[in-house]
Protein backbone atom coordinates (compact mmCIF):
# COMPACT_ATOMS: atom_id res chain seq x y z
CA UNK A 1 0.00 0.00 0.00
CA UNK A 2 2.78 2.37 0.99
CA UNK A 3 4.69 1.44 -2.12
CA UNK A 4 1.61 1.95 -4.26
CA UNK A 5 1.12 5.41 -2.78
CA UNK A 6 4.73 6.29 -3.47
CA UNK A 7 4.39 5.01 -7.04
CA UNK A 8 1.19 6.98 -7.57
CA UNK A 9 3.06 10.06 -6.35
CA UNK A 10 6.00 9.34 -8.67
CA UNK A 11 3.72 8.98 -11.69
CA UNK A 12 1.75 12.12 -10.83
CA UNK A 13 4.93 14.16 -10.37
CA UNK A 14 6.53 12.70 -13.48
CA UNK A 15 3.59 13.44 -15.73
CA UNK A 16 3.28 17.01 -14.44
CA UNK A 17 6.96 17.52 -15.06
CA UNK A 18 6.85 15.90 -18.50
CA UNK A 19 3.97 18.12 -19.51
CA UNK A 20 5.61 21.22 -18.08
CA UNK A 21 8.61 20.91 -20.40
CA UNK A 22 6.95 18.97 -23.18
CA UNK A 23 9.14 20.26 -26.02
CA UNK A 24 12.30 19.15 -24.33
CA UNK A 25 10.78 15.81 -23.48
CA UNK A 26 9.48 15.34 -27.02
CA UNK A 27 13.14 15.43 -28.01
CA UNK A 28 13.97 12.49 -25.75
CA UNK A 29 10.92 10.55 -26.83
CA UNK A 30 11.76 11.25 -30.49
CA UNK A 31 15.37 10.12 -30.15
CA UNK A 32 14.33 6.90 -28.53
CA UNK A 33 11.57 6.31 -31.07
CA UNK A 34 13.98 6.78 -33.98
CA UNK A 35 16.65 4.52 -32.52
CA UNK A 36 14.22 1.77 -31.70
CA UNK A 37 12.62 2.18 -35.12
CA UNK A 38 15.93 1.54 -36.84
CA UNK A 39 16.62 -1.42 -34.61
CA UNK A 40 13.13 -2.78 -35.24
CA UNK A 41 13.41 -2.30 -38.99
CA UNK A 42 16.54 -4.40 -39.09
CA UNK A 43 14.90 -7.00 -36.92
CA UNK A 44 11.94 -7.15 -39.28
CA UNK A 45 14.15 -7.59 -42.33
CA UNK A 46 16.24 -10.22 -40.61
CA UNK A 47 13.25 -12.18 -39.41
CA UNK A 48 11.72 -12.15 -42.89
CA UNK A 49 14.93 -13.38 -44.48
CA UNK A 50 15.11 -15.96 -41.76
CA UNK A 51 11.64 -17.13 -42.64
CA UNK A 52 12.73 -17.62 -46.22
CA UNK A 53 15.80 -19.56 -45.26
CA UNK A 54 13.88 -21.74 -42.84
CA UNK A 55 11.43 -22.53 -45.60
CA UNK A 56 14.07 -23.32 -48.15
CA UNK A 57 16.56 -25.18 -46.10
CA UNK A 58 13.91 -27.46 -44.73
CA UNK A 59 14.13 -29.14 -48.12
CA UNK A 60 17.40 -29.11 -49.90
CA UNK A 61 16.59 -30.12 -53.43
CA UNK A 62 18.55 -30.73 -56.55
CA UNK A 63 16.58 -30.37 -59.76
CA UNK A 64 17.60 -32.26 -62.91
CA UNK A 65 16.02 -30.80 -66.02
CA UNK A 66 15.42 -33.44 -68.63
CA UNK A 67 16.08 -33.40 -72.32
CA UNK A 68 12.94 -32.77 -74.34
CA UNK A 69 11.07 -35.84 -75.51
CA UNK A 70 12.90 -38.19 -73.18
CA UNK A 71 11.42 -41.70 -73.33
CA UNK A 72 10.20 -43.61 -70.31
CA UNK A 73 13.05 -46.12 -69.80
CA UNK A 74 15.83 -43.55 -69.68
CA UNK A 75 13.87 -41.47 -67.22
CA UNK A 76 12.98 -44.49 -65.11
CA UNK A 77 16.61 -45.55 -64.87
CA UNK A 78 17.64 -42.03 -63.84
CA UNK A 79 14.95 -41.98 -61.13
CA UNK A 80 15.99 -45.44 -59.99
CA UNK A 81 19.66 -44.54 -59.68
CA UNK A 82 18.79 -41.34 -57.80
CA UNK A 83 16.59 -43.28 -55.38
CA UNK A 84 19.48 -45.64 -54.68
CA UNK A 85 21.81 -42.79 -53.77
CA UNK A 86 22.40 -42.83 -49.99
CA UNK A 87 22.00 -39.04 -49.69
CA UNK A 88 18.62 -38.91 -51.41
CA UNK A 89 15.44 -39.17 -49.42
CA UNK A 90 12.82 -38.89 -52.13
CA UNK A 91 12.53 -38.29 -55.84
CA UNK A 92 9.70 -36.57 -57.62
CA UNK A 93 9.08 -36.43 -61.34
CA UNK A 94 7.64 -33.17 -62.62
CA UNK A 95 6.14 -33.40 -66.08
CA UNK A 96 6.02 -30.47 -68.47
CA UNK A 97 2.34 -29.90 -67.73
CA UNK A 98 2.96 -29.93 -63.99
CA UNK A 99 5.76 -27.41 -64.40
CA UNK A 100 3.39 -25.17 -66.31
CA UNK A 101 0.76 -25.50 -63.55
CA UNK A 102 3.32 -24.55 -60.93
CA UNK A 103 4.34 -21.51 -62.87
CA UNK A 104 0.74 -20.40 -63.19
CA UNK A 105 0.09 -20.85 -59.48
CA UNK A 106 3.23 -18.95 -58.57
CA UNK A 107 2.91 -16.01 -60.94
CA UNK A 108 -0.73 -15.17 -61.27
CA UNK A 109 0.09 -11.93 -63.06
CA UNK A 110 1.86 -13.83 -65.79
CA UNK A 111 -0.89 -16.44 -66.28
CA UNK A 112 -1.18 -15.80 -69.99
CA UNK A 113 2.52 -15.74 -70.77
CA UNK A 114 2.85 -19.41 -71.73
CA UNK A 115 -0.20 -19.13 -73.99
CA UNK A 116 1.33 -16.07 -75.63
CA UNK A 117 4.44 -18.06 -76.33
CA UNK A 118 2.30 -20.57 -78.16
CA UNK A 119 3.60 -23.70 -76.54
CA UNK A 120 4.63 -24.96 -73.10
CA UNK A 121 8.18 -23.67 -72.59
CA UNK A 122 8.89 -25.69 -69.45
CA UNK A 123 11.02 -28.82 -69.51
CA UNK A 124 10.18 -31.88 -67.47
CA UNK A 125 12.37 -32.43 -64.44
CA UNK A 126 13.28 -34.76 -61.62
CA UNK A 127 13.56 -33.29 -58.14
CA UNK A 128 15.74 -35.09 -55.61
CA UNK A 129 15.27 -34.13 -51.96
CA UNK A 130 18.22 -34.76 -49.69
CA UNK A 131 18.01 -36.70 -46.47
CA UNK A 132 18.07 -34.58 -43.30
CA UNK A 133 21.61 -34.56 -41.98
CA UNK A 134 23.12 -34.94 -45.43
CA UNK A 135 22.11 -31.53 -46.71
CA UNK A 136 25.69 -30.33 -46.89
CA UNK A 137 27.27 -28.48 -49.78
CA UNK A 138 29.64 -31.45 -50.24
CA UNK A 139 26.77 -33.91 -50.70
CA UNK A 140 25.02 -31.60 -53.12
CA UNK A 141 28.19 -31.18 -55.16
CA UNK A 142 28.86 -34.89 -55.18
CA UNK A 143 25.30 -35.61 -56.32
CA UNK A 144 25.49 -33.00 -59.03
CA UNK A 145 28.84 -34.32 -60.25
CA UNK A 146 27.51 -37.87 -60.33
CA UNK A 147 24.41 -37.09 -62.36
CA UNK A 148 25.00 -34.03 -64.50
CA UNK A 149 26.52 -36.16 -67.27
CA UNK A 150 23.85 -38.85 -67.00
CA UNK A 151 21.84 -39.59 -70.15
CA UNK A 152 18.72 -37.41 -70.43
CA UNK A 153 19.95 -34.73 -68.03
CA UNK A 154 20.00 -31.37 -69.73
CA UNK A 155 20.80 -29.12 -66.82
CA UNK A 156 21.18 -29.27 -63.02
CA UNK A 157 20.01 -26.63 -60.59
CA UNK A 158 20.51 -26.51 -56.86
CA UNK A 159 19.78 -23.83 -54.28
CA UNK A 160 22.22 -24.62 -51.54
CA UNK A 161 24.67 -21.91 -52.42
CA UNK A 162 21.86 -19.47 -52.59
CA UNK A 163 20.78 -20.43 -49.10
CA UNK A 164 24.30 -20.04 -47.85
CA UNK A 165 24.51 -16.60 -49.35
CA UNK A 166 21.18 -15.67 -47.84
CA UNK A 167 22.31 -16.87 -44.42
CA UNK A 168 25.38 -14.70 -44.70
CA UNK A 169 23.18 -11.78 -45.72
CA UNK A 170 20.98 -12.34 -42.69
CA UNK A 171 23.96 -12.40 -40.42
CA UNK A 172 25.11 -9.16 -42.01
CA UNK A 173 21.71 -7.50 -41.65
CA UNK A 174 21.55 -8.58 -38.02
CA UNK A 175 25.07 -7.37 -37.33
CA UNK A 176 24.57 -3.99 -38.97
CA UNK A 177 21.19 -3.65 -37.26
CA UNK A 178 22.62 -4.48 -33.87
CA UNK A 179 25.51 -2.09 -34.34
CA UNK A 180 23.45 0.79 -35.67
CA UNK A 181 20.64 0.12 -33.23
CA UNK A 182 23.14 -0.10 -30.40
CA UNK A 183 24.70 3.24 -31.28
CA UNK A 184 21.30 4.85 -31.56
CA UNK A 185 20.13 3.35 -28.29
CA UNK A 186 23.22 4.83 -26.63
CA UNK A 187 22.26 8.15 -28.17
CA UNK A 188 18.83 7.68 -26.61
CA UNK A 189 20.31 7.02 -23.19
CA UNK A 190 22.50 10.08 -23.58
CA UNK A 191 19.63 12.34 -24.63
CA UNK A 192 17.33 11.21 -21.86
CA UNK A 193 20.02 11.51 -19.25
CA UNK A 194 20.87 15.04 -20.36
CA UNK A 195 17.28 16.20 -20.57
CA UNK A 196 16.60 14.81 -17.11
CA UNK A 197 19.78 16.37 -15.80
CA UNK A 198 18.54 19.76 -16.97
CA UNK A 199 15.29 19.17 -15.10
CA UNK A 200 17.22 18.16 -12.01
CA UNK A 201 19.33 21.33 -12.21
CA UNK A 202 16.27 23.48 -12.68
CA UNK A 203 14.63 21.93 -9.65
CA UNK A 204 17.66 21.49 -7.42
CA UNK A 205 16.28 23.89 -4.77
CA UNK A 206 13.10 21.91 -4.50
CA UNK A 207 14.95 18.63 -4.24
CA UNK A 208 17.14 20.05 -1.47
CA UNK A 209 14.06 21.18 0.40
CA UNK A 210 12.47 17.76 0.08
CA UNK A 211 15.58 16.20 1.54
CA UNK A 212 15.61 18.74 4.39
CA UNK A 213 12.09 17.90 5.49
CA UNK A 214 12.94 14.22 5.60
CA UNK A 215 12.35 12.72 2.15
CA UNK A 216 14.61 9.78 1.37
CA UNK A 217 16.89 9.83 -1.63
CA UNK A 218 14.77 7.22 -3.36
CA UNK A 219 11.66 9.31 -2.81
CA UNK A 220 13.26 12.36 -4.37
CA UNK A 221 14.67 10.38 -7.28
CA UNK A 222 11.55 8.31 -7.94
CA UNK A 223 9.68 10.85 -10.09
CA UNK A 224 12.73 11.31 -12.33
CA UNK A 225 13.14 7.60 -12.86
CA UNK A 226 9.46 7.33 -13.73
CA UNK A 227 9.91 10.29 -16.09
CA UNK A 228 12.61 8.35 -17.92
CA UNK A 229 10.45 5.25 -17.89
CA UNK A 230 7.51 7.10 -19.46
CA UNK A 231 9.71 8.80 -22.06
CA UNK A 232 11.34 5.52 -23.03
CA UNK A 233 8.05 3.64 -23.08
CA UNK A 234 6.42 6.30 -25.25
CA UNK A 235 9.41 6.20 -27.58
CA UNK A 236 9.07 2.43 -27.81
CA UNK A 237 5.35 2.57 -28.54
CA UNK A 238 5.84 5.21 -31.21
CA UNK A 239 8.60 3.20 -32.87
CA UNK A 240 6.44 0.06 -32.96
CA UNK A 241 3.61 2.15 -34.44
CA UNK A 242 5.95 3.58 -37.08
CA UNK A 243 7.31 0.13 -37.85
CA UNK A 244 3.80 -1.16 -38.34
CA UNK A 245 2.90 1.73 -40.62
CA UNK A 246 6.07 1.37 -42.66
CA UNK A 247 5.53 -2.36 -42.81
CA UNK A 248 2.02 -1.98 -44.15
CA UNK A 249 3.18 0.35 -46.90
CA UNK A 250 6.22 -1.68 -47.92
CA UNK A 251 4.57 -5.06 -47.50
CA UNK A 252 2.20 -4.37 -50.37
CA UNK A 253 5.12 -3.95 -52.76
CA UNK A 254 6.93 -6.88 -51.25
CA UNK A 255 3.94 -9.14 -51.66
CA UNK A 256 4.65 -9.93 -55.31
CA UNK A 257 8.20 -10.88 -54.45
CA UNK A 258 7.09 -12.87 -51.47
CA UNK A 259 4.83 -14.98 -53.67
CA UNK A 260 8.06 -16.23 -55.07
CA UNK A 261 9.10 -17.29 -51.64
CA UNK A 262 5.87 -19.07 -51.03
CA UNK A 263 4.26 -16.92 -48.38
CA UNK A 264 3.44 -13.38 -47.24
CA UNK A 265 6.03 -11.24 -45.47
CA UNK A 266 5.73 -11.19 -41.71
CA UNK A 267 5.70 -8.37 -39.15
CA UNK A 268 7.63 -8.66 -35.92
CA UNK A 269 6.05 -11.14 -33.53
CA UNK A 270 4.22 -9.70 -30.55
CA UNK A 271 6.90 -10.60 -28.05
CA UNK A 272 9.49 -8.68 -30.04
CA UNK A 273 7.19 -5.63 -30.08
CA UNK A 274 6.82 -5.93 -26.32
CA UNK A 275 10.57 -6.29 -26.10
CA UNK A 276 11.06 -3.06 -28.06
CA UNK A 277 8.73 -1.11 -25.77
CA UNK A 278 10.33 -2.65 -22.68
CA UNK A 279 13.72 -1.83 -24.15
CA UNK A 280 12.64 1.78 -24.52
CA UNK A 281 11.60 1.84 -20.88
CA UNK A 282 14.93 0.35 -19.86
CA UNK A 283 16.77 2.98 -21.89
CA UNK A 284 14.75 5.69 -20.14
CA UNK A 285 15.40 4.32 -16.68
CA UNK A 286 19.12 3.89 -17.33
CA UNK A 287 19.28 7.41 -18.75
CA UNK A 288 17.64 8.97 -15.74
CA UNK A 289 19.65 6.91 -13.26
CA UNK A 290 22.81 8.06 -15.02
CA UNK A 291 21.84 11.69 -14.71
CA UNK A 292 20.78 11.28 -11.08
CA UNK A 293 24.03 9.52 -10.28
CA UNK A 294 25.98 12.53 -11.42
CA UNK A 295 23.76 15.09 -9.72
CA UNK A 296 23.52 16.17 -6.11
CA UNK A 297 20.31 14.57 -4.90
Amino acid at each position, binding site marked *: *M*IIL*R*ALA*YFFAEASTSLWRSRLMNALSVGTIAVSLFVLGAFLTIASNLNEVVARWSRKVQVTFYLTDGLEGPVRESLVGRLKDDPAVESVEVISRDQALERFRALFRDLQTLPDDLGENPFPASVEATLRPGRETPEEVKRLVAAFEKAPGVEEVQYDLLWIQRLSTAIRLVRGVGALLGGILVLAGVFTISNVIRLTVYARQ*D*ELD*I*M*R*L*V*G*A*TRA*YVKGPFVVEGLIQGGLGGLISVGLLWAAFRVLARDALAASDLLGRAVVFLPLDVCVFIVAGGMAVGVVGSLLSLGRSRV
Partner: protein
Amino acid sequence: MIQAFHVYKQYDRESSALSDITLHIRKGEFCFLTGPSGAGKTTFLKLVFREELPSQGQILVGGRNVTAIPDSQIPELRRSIGVVFQDFKLLKRKTILENVAFVLRILSVPAKEQRRRAFAALKAVGLHHKMHAYPLQLSGGEQQRVAIARALINDPMLLLADEPTGNLDPEMAQEIMTLFQEVNARGTTVVVATHDREMIQRMGKRVIGLERGRVASG
Protein backbone atom coordinates in the same frame (compact mmCIF):
# COMPACT_ATOMS: atom_id res chain seq x y z
CA MET B 1 17.12 16.33 23.97
CA ILE B 2 20.15 18.15 22.52
CA GLN B 3 23.61 17.58 23.91
CA ALA B 4 26.58 19.24 22.28
CA PHE B 5 30.15 18.40 23.30
CA HIS B 6 32.97 20.71 22.24
CA VAL B 7 31.46 21.35 18.83
CA TYR B 8 33.40 23.29 16.22
CA LYS B 9 32.24 24.27 12.76
CA GLN B 10 34.44 25.76 10.09
CA TYR B 11 32.98 26.47 6.68
CA ASP B 12 36.35 27.65 5.44
CA ARG B 13 39.89 27.70 6.78
CA GLU B 14 40.08 31.37 7.80
CA SER B 15 37.14 31.70 10.17
CA SER B 16 35.05 29.40 12.29
CA ALA B 17 31.29 29.71 12.62
CA LEU B 18 31.17 27.79 15.90
CA SER B 19 33.92 27.17 18.45
CA ASP B 20 33.87 24.81 21.41
CA ILE B 21 30.10 24.73 21.90
CA THR B 22 29.08 22.60 24.85
CA LEU B 23 25.46 22.77 25.95
CA HIS B 24 22.51 20.68 27.03
CA ILE B 25 18.87 21.34 26.18
CA ARG B 26 16.59 19.03 28.13
CA LYS B 27 13.59 17.15 26.86
CA GLY B 28 10.42 19.26 27.03
CA GLU B 29 12.36 22.49 27.40
CA PHE B 30 11.48 25.78 25.66
CA CYS B 31 14.52 27.93 25.09
CA PHE B 32 15.86 30.76 23.00
CA LEU B 33 19.09 30.90 21.08
CA THR B 34 20.22 34.46 20.59
CA GLY B 35 23.17 36.52 19.54
CA PRO B 36 24.13 39.07 16.91
CA SER B 37 23.96 38.37 13.22
CA GLY B 38 26.65 35.91 12.21
CA ALA B 39 27.00 34.54 15.74
CA GLY B 40 26.30 31.02 14.52
CA LYS B 41 22.65 30.42 15.48
CA THR B 42 21.60 29.01 12.12
CA THR B 43 24.78 26.98 11.91
CA PHE B 44 24.07 25.36 15.26
CA LEU B 45 20.54 24.42 14.19
CA LYS B 46 21.87 22.97 10.94
CA LEU B 47 24.17 20.71 12.89
CA VAL B 48 21.24 19.46 14.96
CA PHE B 49 19.17 18.23 12.01
CA ARG B 50 22.28 17.18 10.17
CA GLU B 51 22.18 19.59 7.27
CA GLU B 52 25.82 20.17 8.17
CA LEU B 53 28.40 18.06 9.96
CA PRO B 54 30.54 19.61 12.72
CA SER B 55 34.25 19.92 12.01
CA GLN B 56 34.89 18.59 15.50
CA GLY B 57 32.87 17.42 18.49
CA GLN B 58 29.73 15.38 18.98
CA ILE B 59 26.03 16.22 19.02
CA LEU B 60 23.39 13.94 20.50
CA VAL B 61 19.76 14.48 19.56
CA GLY B 62 17.22 12.42 21.47
CA GLY B 63 20.09 10.23 22.61
CA ARG B 64 21.33 9.56 19.08
CA ASN B 65 24.72 10.77 17.97
CA VAL B 66 23.79 12.66 14.81
CA THR B 67 27.42 13.22 13.90
CA ALA B 68 27.84 9.48 13.53
CA ILE B 69 24.58 8.23 11.98
CA PRO B 70 24.81 6.80 8.46
CA ASP B 71 23.28 8.73 5.54
CA SER B 72 20.43 6.27 5.32
CA GLN B 73 19.17 7.29 8.78
CA ILE B 74 19.12 11.02 8.09
CA PRO B 75 15.54 11.09 6.72
CA GLU B 76 14.29 9.40 9.87
CA LEU B 77 16.08 11.94 12.05
CA ARG B 78 14.68 14.86 10.09
CA ARG B 79 11.14 13.49 10.23
CA SER B 80 11.27 13.62 14.00
CA ILE B 81 12.36 17.27 13.96
CA GLY B 82 10.19 20.20 12.80
CA VAL B 83 12.27 23.01 11.32
CA VAL B 84 11.14 26.54 10.56
CA PHE B 85 13.86 27.74 8.19
CA GLN B 86 15.06 31.30 8.29
CA ASP B 87 14.45 31.49 4.53
CA PHE B 88 11.24 29.37 4.76
CA LYS B 89 12.28 26.83 2.11
CA LEU B 90 8.85 26.32 0.56
CA LEU B 91 8.31 24.38 -2.68
CA LYS B 92 7.37 27.15 -5.07
CA ARG B 93 5.63 24.90 -7.58
CA LYS B 94 3.25 23.54 -4.99
CA THR B 95 0.33 25.20 -3.22
CA ILE B 96 0.81 25.96 0.44
CA LEU B 97 -1.57 23.13 1.32
CA GLU B 98 0.61 20.73 -0.69
CA ASN B 99 3.70 22.20 0.94
CA VAL B 100 2.41 21.47 4.38
CA ALA B 101 1.02 18.07 3.36
CA PHE B 102 4.34 17.05 1.80
CA VAL B 103 5.73 16.08 5.20
CA LEU B 104 2.91 13.56 5.54
CA ARG B 105 3.13 12.53 1.92
CA ILE B 106 6.67 11.26 2.27
CA LEU B 107 5.38 9.16 5.16
CA SER B 108 2.74 7.73 2.79
CA VAL B 109 -0.15 8.98 4.90
CA PRO B 110 -3.44 8.52 2.97
CA ALA B 111 -4.29 11.52 0.78
CA LYS B 112 -7.47 12.34 2.64
CA GLU B 113 -5.75 12.44 5.98
CA GLN B 114 -2.91 14.51 4.49
CA ARG B 115 -5.42 17.14 3.40
CA ARG B 116 -7.32 17.12 6.67
CA ARG B 117 -4.24 17.55 8.82
CA ALA B 118 -2.59 20.06 6.48
CA PHE B 119 -5.76 22.14 6.55
CA ALA B 120 -5.80 22.03 10.35
CA ALA B 121 -2.14 23.07 10.49
CA LEU B 122 -2.76 26.00 8.15
CA LYS B 123 -5.78 26.97 10.22
CA ALA B 124 -3.58 27.09 13.34
CA VAL B 125 -1.46 29.80 11.67
CA GLY B 126 -4.51 31.56 10.19
CA LEU B 127 -3.87 30.76 6.52
CA HIS B 128 -6.50 28.14 5.71
CA HIS B 129 -8.38 30.58 3.51
CA LYS B 130 -5.34 30.80 1.19
CA MET B 131 -4.56 27.10 1.03
CA HIS B 132 -4.61 26.95 -2.77
CA ALA B 133 -2.22 29.88 -3.19
CA TYR B 134 1.39 29.35 -4.19
CA PRO B 135 4.19 30.55 -1.88
CA LEU B 136 5.26 33.39 -4.17
CA GLN B 137 1.72 34.79 -4.12
CA LEU B 138 2.03 35.33 -0.37
CA SER B 139 3.71 38.00 1.71
CA GLY B 140 6.90 37.22 3.63
CA GLY B 141 5.01 36.91 6.88
CA GLU B 142 2.46 34.57 5.34
CA GLN B 143 5.19 32.36 3.89
CA GLN B 144 6.80 32.26 7.30
CA ARG B 145 3.55 31.01 8.81
CA VAL B 146 3.32 28.30 6.15
CA ALA B 147 6.82 27.22 7.16
CA ILE B 148 5.65 27.10 10.77
CA ALA B 149 2.58 25.04 9.86
CA ARG B 150 4.79 22.56 7.98
CA ALA B 151 7.20 22.27 10.91
CA LEU B 152 4.38 21.46 13.30
CA ILE B 153 2.17 19.17 11.23
CA ASN B 154 3.74 15.89 12.24
CA ASP B 155 3.96 16.52 16.00
CA PRO B 156 7.77 16.56 16.07
CA MET B 157 9.68 15.64 19.20
CA LEU B 158 11.83 18.69 18.59
CA LEU B 159 10.97 22.04 17.01
CA LEU B 160 13.80 24.21 15.69
CA ALA B 161 12.59 27.66 14.67
CA ASP B 162 15.07 30.03 13.03
CA GLU B 163 13.82 33.62 13.35
CA PRO B 164 10.23 32.42 13.08
CA THR B 165 8.78 35.84 13.80
CA GLY B 166 11.25 37.93 11.82
CA ASN B 167 8.64 38.94 9.24
CA LEU B 168 5.63 39.12 11.51
CA ASP B 169 3.93 42.08 13.17
CA PRO B 170 3.99 42.04 17.01
CA GLU B 171 0.46 40.62 17.33
CA MET B 172 1.08 37.78 14.93
CA ALA B 173 4.47 37.14 16.55
CA GLN B 174 2.75 36.82 19.90
CA GLU B 175 0.19 34.42 18.43
CA ILE B 176 2.96 32.23 17.05
CA MET B 177 4.72 32.22 20.43
CA THR B 178 1.48 31.14 22.05
CA LEU B 179 1.18 28.37 19.46
CA PHE B 180 4.73 27.23 20.27
CA GLN B 181 3.90 27.19 23.96
CA GLU B 182 0.90 24.96 23.28
CA VAL B 183 3.07 22.63 21.24
CA ASN B 184 5.65 22.68 24.03
CA ALA B 185 2.95 21.86 26.56
CA ARG B 186 2.10 18.75 24.52
CA GLY B 187 5.69 17.54 24.95
CA THR B 188 7.69 18.98 22.05
CA THR B 189 11.07 20.47 22.89
CA VAL B 190 11.24 23.96 21.37
CA VAL B 191 14.36 25.90 20.36
CA VAL B 192 13.84 29.36 18.91
CA ALA B 193 16.71 31.30 17.36
CA THR B 194 16.04 35.03 17.41
CA HIS B 195 17.49 38.43 18.14
CA ASP B 196 14.17 39.88 19.23
CA ARG B 197 15.19 40.90 22.80
CA GLU B 198 11.76 42.18 23.66
CA MET B 199 10.09 38.89 22.88
CA ILE B 200 12.72 36.95 24.80
CA GLN B 201 12.12 39.09 27.85
CA ARG B 202 8.36 38.81 27.60
CA MET B 203 8.51 35.01 27.42
CA GLY B 204 10.83 34.59 30.40
CA LYS B 205 12.40 31.33 29.19
CA ARG B 206 15.93 30.05 29.22
CA VAL B 207 18.19 32.03 26.88
CA ILE B 208 21.39 30.72 25.33
CA GLY B 209 23.54 33.55 24.07
CA LEU B 210 26.02 33.00 21.24
CA GLU B 211 28.72 35.44 20.33
CA ARG B 212 31.13 34.99 17.46
CA GLY B 213 30.59 31.26 17.55
CA ARG B 214 30.96 30.76 21.28
CA VAL B 215 28.45 30.30 24.08
CA ALA B 216 28.43 33.63 25.91
CA SER B 217 25.62 32.92 28.36
CA GLY B 218 23.02 30.31 29.32
